[in-house]
């Protein structure tokens, strides 16, 4: 695979955002329309105890992906009420067209006591071309289960041959690497299928092999079909020290499959890596691939997990 970087295309600090949000445009994900590409992202406000709340906003680009034509100035989706799985933030959101509707698979966050937070995947539905979303119930559609005990998150949904496929992550452990530090999380990529996009059947296994070590964290899978093969991008990092040490921080990984079940990981074929310097030199994370006007694009975040925005790349050569 070979990608051409088109640079950073959106900086949240240069725009006015809804919900008192100032920084962060994380995990950009698209709804492709006839005249524009709507890019949803998670941005943050500080709440009254000084902690972050992630909210969803969007920016519309024209089809050249060069010009911004609109930015949401309203609440796209409400956070959950008291005690709900998505009370303290929605990050990220994955949208998919489903007939006249747009479905959104959200990752909702709620704060805990012994560990910082937990997450589950919710469903919300839009009947106005993705301007606003209404929740399908107060609870999640995918959450902790026997062998996926916490941190069920990062859904990416695609329909192939009438079956809904979801790639997502689940937590495997919270581990203390340094006694005086809070525990760090470890999570892995998994797959589930559904007939209706609501009730999911899990494969209940890790589908992407570890490359760093057993404690490798794998996040945000995104899948597209090209040249007869399914291609998956995701990000991965060390479980500890990833915020401060660039060598431990997120990188983009790659795997391919012919059957959507068995995946062969080979990060050396990803065809994209951190830059020598600049906005994506410290890390690359939260990739999202999409097709528009015959081209395959990738949106992703760079340094500081997207505090100052996201960038774009276009697929130049495709092979597995």
């Amino acid at each position: 695979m070979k990608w051409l970087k088109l640079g950073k295309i959106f900086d949240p600090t240069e725009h006015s955002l809804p919900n008192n949000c100032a920084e962060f445009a994380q995990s950009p994900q698209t709804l492709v329309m006839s005249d524009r590409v709507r890019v949803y992202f998670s941005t943050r406000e500080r709440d009254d105890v000084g902690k972050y709340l992630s909210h969803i906003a969007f920016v519309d680009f024209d089809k050249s992906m060069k010009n911004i034509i609109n930015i949401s100035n309203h609440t796209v989706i409400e956070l959950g009420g008291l005690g709900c799985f998505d009370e303290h933030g929605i990050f990220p959101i994955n949208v998919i067209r489903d007939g006249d509707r747009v479905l959104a698979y959200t990752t909702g966050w709620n704060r805990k006591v012994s560990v910082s937070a937990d997450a589950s995947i919710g469903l919300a539905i839009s009947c106005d071309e993705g301007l606003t979303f209404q929740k399908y119930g107060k609870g999640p559609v995918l959450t902790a289960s026997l062998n996926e005990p916490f941190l069920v998150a990062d859904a990416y949904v695609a329909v192939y041959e009438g079956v809904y496929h979801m790639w997502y992550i689940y937590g495997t452990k919270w581990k203390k690497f340094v006694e005086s530090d809070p525990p760090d999380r470890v999570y892995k990529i998994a797959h589930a299928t559904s007939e209706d996009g609501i009730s999911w059947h899990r494969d209940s296994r890790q589908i992407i092999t570890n490359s760093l070590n057993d404690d490798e964290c794998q996040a945000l899978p995104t899948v597209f079909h090209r040249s007869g093969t399914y291609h998956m991008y995701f990000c991965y990092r060390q479980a500890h020290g990833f915020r401060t040490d660039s060598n431990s921080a997120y990188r983009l990984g790659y795997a391919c499959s012919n059957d959507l079940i068995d995946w062969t990981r080979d990060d050396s074929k990803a065809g994209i890596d951190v830059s020598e310097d600049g906005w994506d030199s410290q890390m690359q994370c939260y990739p999202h691939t999409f097709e528009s006007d015959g081209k395959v694009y990738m949106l992703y975040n760079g340094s500081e997990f997207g505090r100052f925005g996201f960038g774009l790349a276009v697929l130049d050569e495709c092979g597995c």
Partner: protein
Amino acid sequence: MFKWEKLGKIFDPRDLKSESWMQEFAQSPSVLIFEKYVRVYFCSRPAPASDGQYLSFLSFIDLDRENLHRIVNVCSEPILSLGTYGTFDEFGTNPVSVIRNQDEVRVYYAGWTRCESVPFNAAIGLAISHDDGDSFTRLGEGPVLSFSPDEPYLLGSPRIREYDGKWYLWYVSGKDWLQTEGKPEPVYKIRMASSEDGINWIKFGKDIIENKLGENECQACPDVIFHDGKYHMFFSYRDSHNYKGKEGGYRIGYASSVDMINWNRCDEMAGMSVSENGWDSEMVNYPHVFMLDGETYMLYQGNEMGRSGIGLAKLDGAQNWSNQ
């Protein structure tokens, strides 16, 4: 109306003469019947931590089958450890329900976690014993029944049953967290799920017991027994506020059904109310009804949600259940 003869308190961890990890509380009794004794599983607690918060563990006592007032064995340590960092049962396992499954014993329990905006959350776990119920190992680190779009939080009070080779779980699901002047207070309702294996569950997806105290009524512990062609449910209910004393505290309700889905609530039939004075004078709750050697018994917890122990009652033998 059912006519119960109260036989008094049978166990209170505060009365233990020898050193025990159990400091107080004997909650949510559930029995497993052996040849010579009746094992009563329940939930008990060590002394609270310095911040006043409790952990709750699974425990048991064995009662002499010939004389249920005689305790012949007290479990020496919790039968299931708590979960690790970040798991659903890191801070407690309570309530509990046990069932035999061929040569294993299964325990379904609510696991407790602690949260920032609300005090806690719960989901239902499964642990299995291969030593006749002495010790248990959880089937997985996560819950066997967890949240869904219309059951957003607080899945608890499991009661496990098997009828005609099919598994049934009655449980409660959180409906709302009410903002109060103090801590938020939950509202929860009785629900049901069924399963072919006791592991993969299909939720029925509706509240099955109508409210009596209004929409903020809390319902718990749906204990079901089949007798004389009908399913009989004894459960607990209370108001969502001022429930820690006699006035708004838990009472025992009753409902019956011929199909396990449609239930007729008729609390007047339960026949089990608070005593004039003593250990169950403020509340009676978490009933568990079982049959033994031709008699029908109810175990239940008393005042302060079971801080003061478990008691026993016996049904008047002349009852005709089908008229209930």
